[in-house]
């Protein structure tokens, strides 16, 4: 009887391993492909071999990327844009989310509802009017143009997340601080904000990734090569697959590795934040 149960468990574990291994291979295979392409010598980009580490592996594509292409310039542009979007998003959402969480004031419900509704806007809906606005304001081909558009995506979500997190922090802490003579702003700034650090991190990560990995808007607004952000630059390598596929692959790896590491470290917070934000409201 006990033996029977043991065998059953063994079989079930075996099936679990099998499924996990199959899906892990599916999950990492495309990434290994990119690695493989980035290491191929220039005359063997197009090959029908499926070996992951190619014969005559070389780092030539990486060298060409840094010395022969404006890759570092694109990276600087991406960092600049992402940094500004993240800083504004986090600062504004930290304050607005706090107000929505702690105070009952006129316009609160409408404010919260409109934040939620913006999440249902089709991705392209605000893009067209904003594009026309940017043309009229002369902001096409400027970083300010993309920064404005990105903050419209990032900010509503950030406010919503911050509010959800503040809701889980007990208000008795601020009340105690107020009794000790803190001003309202000091109670928020010195007591609540440090406790909300995990949420701030998630919101920062989200804003950063939004702008770091955005292609559709950047392709319309940034037209000069020297203003391109990484996604636009990388796309041109890929479009010309036969000659620059190696560059594309090398650049992809370099661009992905920092965000992937950041993401893996923070994914636990991210998920608890997401579920809190939507369940608890």
């Amino acid at each position, binding site marked *: 009887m006990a033996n029977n149960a043991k065998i059953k468990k063994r079989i079930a574990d075996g099936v679990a391993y099998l*499924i996990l291994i199959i899906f*892990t291979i599916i999950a990492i295979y495309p*990434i290994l492909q990119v690695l493989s392409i980035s290491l191929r010598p220039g005359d063997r980009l197009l090959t029908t071999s499926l070996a992951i580490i190619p014969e005559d592996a070389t780092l030539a594509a990486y060298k060409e990327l840094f010395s022969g292409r404006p890759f570092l310039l694109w990276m600087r542009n991406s960092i600049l844009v992402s940094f500004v979007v993240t800083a504004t998003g986090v600062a504004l959402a930290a304050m607005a989310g706090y107000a929505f969480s*702690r105070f009952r004031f006129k316009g609160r419900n409408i404010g919260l509802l409109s934040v939620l509704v913006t999440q249902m806007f089709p991705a392209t809906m605000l893009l067209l009017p904003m594009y026309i606005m940017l043309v009229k304001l002369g902001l096409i081909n400027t970083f300010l143009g993309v920064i404005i558009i990105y903050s419209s995506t990032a900010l509503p979500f950030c406010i919503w997340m911050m509010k959800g997190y503040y809701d889980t922090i007990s208000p008795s802490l601020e009340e105690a601080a107020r009794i000790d003579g803190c001003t309202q702003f000091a109670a928020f700034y010195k007591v609540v904000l440090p406790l909300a650090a995990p949420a701030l991190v998630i919101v920062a990560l989200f804003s950063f990734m939004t702008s770091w990995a955005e292609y559709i808007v950047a392709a319309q607004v940034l037209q000069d090569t020297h203003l391109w952000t990484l996604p636009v630059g990388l796309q041109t390598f890929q479009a010309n697959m036969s000659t620059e596929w190696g560059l594309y692959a090398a650049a992809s790896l370099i661009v992905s590795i920092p965000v992937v590491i950041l993401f893996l470290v923070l994914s636990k917070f991210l998920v608890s934040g997401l579920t809190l934000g939507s369940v608890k*409201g």
Partner: protein
Amino acid sequence: MLERNRKLFPYILILPAALVMLGVVFYPFVYNIVLSFSNMSLRNFREWQVIGFDQYIRVFFEPTEPSFYVVFIKTMIWTVVNVTFHVIIGVMLAMMLNRQIKGKSIFRTLLILPWAIPQYIVALTWRGMYNYEYGAINLILTQYLNLPAVEWLRSPTEAFIAVIITNIWLGFPFMMVIALGGLQSISNEFYEAADIDGASAWQKFKNITVPLLKPVMIPAVTLGIIWTFNNINVIWLVTNGGEPADQTHILVSYVYRAAFGLYRYGYAAALSMVIFFILLIFSLTFMKRSQATKSAY
């Protein structure tokens, strides 16, 4: 004095965010409504005028290729197929990861990778893998499985399947992580009690796992539906803007093409409004049905 300050404080906190939202969300939204009733295009960019419902009538009745209805149906297929596979694969993997097995955290980390990589890189990489002669997918099909190579990106049906496969790959980790969190919060006592009663694995899944996982999954599915419906990156980049011959659009990429490929601004604005209402009605019904936001605000 103090009392008045107290009332003002929330407004002061909200003011900066409100100003930005006003400028980058509400003003463009209203502007979009105006545009949708106008005849603006690249040709009359400066002398455009309000012309009434013409653009909306065009959205529904103009004999374009592909027509609005075809794209609408494709969008529905796209959303339903993607989210269904995300949930099934995600929950299945979460259940495997929830067992007492070795190497759990390594599997978990590797399985999250598709979610962690920037979407445009995923899309462009898969596009390369679908290449007819040199793409990895056809090489695997012909070299290992002895199957004929598939013209992934040159015929509409295959291209659409190719994009869906890409998006399934990209989206299952999110559902997996959410489901894993939900499973870990289910007390083991339920399963032990069921074991004593001699319940089968399927009965335990149906009567314990599913009902207790549901409240966790419903908000995630709602988000998943909205994200998938709205996901222009993958479809645009894998098919290189709707190739072949605009046969692989979903609604959001269809609008993008009308606006930035054909410069039909008024028409694109009207189409955007239609999509917005579809999404709004859909999400509200879904949330009401599932009571996901009972305490939302």
